[in-house]
């Protein structure tokens, strides 16, 4: 099972590279039982091999990156995968805004009414930015998405960047129009309800329940 998770992460790493959504230092983690499987931050995600992973458990001596992933998956009980990446338009927003509002409805549906920008890469600040949300931006230029599956976290990353591009360019045009709060809440609720059923059969969901 662990080998299957590694292969899936390697595949997602390559996809992030293909979409120009990653730089060196980015990381992916997946919950496996009581521990997490994390990529080596010194290896660019598109170049990952099955040797570039570390299994981390509670009580281990952890690096700041490992602590962050462990804390997020501890805080987001429904989440099983985390992607921390650097994407071009998200990086533009992080330097200027304290939150990225939804100006497209797929953003509202998948991310929510807005994504907050964490004021630092400190764990507490990031967890605060993730309150009631499954994605956030970080002032250092990174973005972060949590998913019930790795695929869902990847979709979160894609939608964040698409939403950031639309927000940046609609601001340049002069008129970013936010999706209404009630519409955003409704779409987000329906998305979570609809996809929770599909995910029951998902590989990564099964892995969560599987002890090695």
């Amino acid at each position, binding site marked *: 099972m662990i080998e299957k998770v590694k292969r899936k992460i390697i595949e997602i790493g390559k996809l992030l590279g293909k979409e120009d959504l990653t730089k060196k230092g980015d990381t992916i983690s997946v919950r496996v039982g009581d521990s997490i499987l994390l990529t080596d931050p010194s290896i660019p995600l598109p170049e990952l091999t099955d040797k570039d992973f570390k299994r981390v458990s509670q009580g281990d001596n952890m690096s700041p990156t490992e602590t962050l992933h462990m804390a997020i998956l501890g805080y987001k009980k429904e989440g099983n995968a985390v992607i921390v990446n650097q994407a071009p338009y998200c990086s533009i927003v992080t330097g200027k805004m304290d939150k990225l509002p939804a100006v*497209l*409805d797929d953003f509202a549906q998948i991310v929510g009414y807005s994504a907050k920008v964490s004021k630092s890469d400190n764990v507490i600040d990031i967890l605060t930015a993730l309150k009631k949300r499954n994605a956030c931006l970080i002032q250092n230029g990174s973005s972060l998405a949590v998913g019930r599956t790795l695929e869902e976290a990847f979709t979160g990353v894609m939608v964040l960047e698409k939403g950031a591009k639309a927000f940046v360019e*609609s*601001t*340049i*045009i002069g008129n970013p*129009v936010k999706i209404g709060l009630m519409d955003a809440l409704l779409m987000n609720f329906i998305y979570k309800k609809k996809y929770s059923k599909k995910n029951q059969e998902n590989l990564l969901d099964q892995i969560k329940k599987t002890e090695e």
Partner: protein
Amino acid sequence: MNEIELRNLVKESGVRLVKEGLVRGTWGNVSVRFDETSMIVTPSGLDYLSLKPEDMVLVDINTLEYTSENKPTTEKKIHAAIYRERPEINAVIHTHSPWCSSMAAAHTEIPAVTDEFVKLIGGEVRVAPYGLPSTSKLTNATVSAIRDRKACLMAGHGVLVCGESLEEAFEVCKMLEESAKNFISDRVSTILGKEEVGLKEIKEAFERASEI
């Protein structure tokens, strides 16, 4: 063309949309008119690259009924309404293409700046007011905005195009995306007084526009 040929055509169109960067993942949808009362549409929530011709769904344009196991795209109402209202239309494509999405986020029309644009699309590309996905409000707004045109933007959502053939609809998609890119790039140039426009200039223009 017979049903099998049309199913193949829709499948190939989905792949082409992905390869030309007009669609990502499962976003967007394609349909062709099958006969006076039915259309063949892409299914809901499936990746274009893994679709097979048999996955496409035959839908009655009057009742929206279908018999296959796959559900048709959730935007089937819009496709059907256009086929009902405009007998000359044989193909409809809905995308969330990146530059058009930014225009849609700004609720801003794409102006008709060339004779070629007017000839192909019919005039400026209007914006359908925002409506929640799959609702009658969105369907009616979109059908109204695309009237006498081959395209419209859907506020906060994406773009809808139609054509007498799939090939024509593709041409419209490509011209729209190029026009949206040019519109935004021109605005960046105007703000900065520079001709060259890349990500660095977009960031600079965003920072200036945010301060206004």
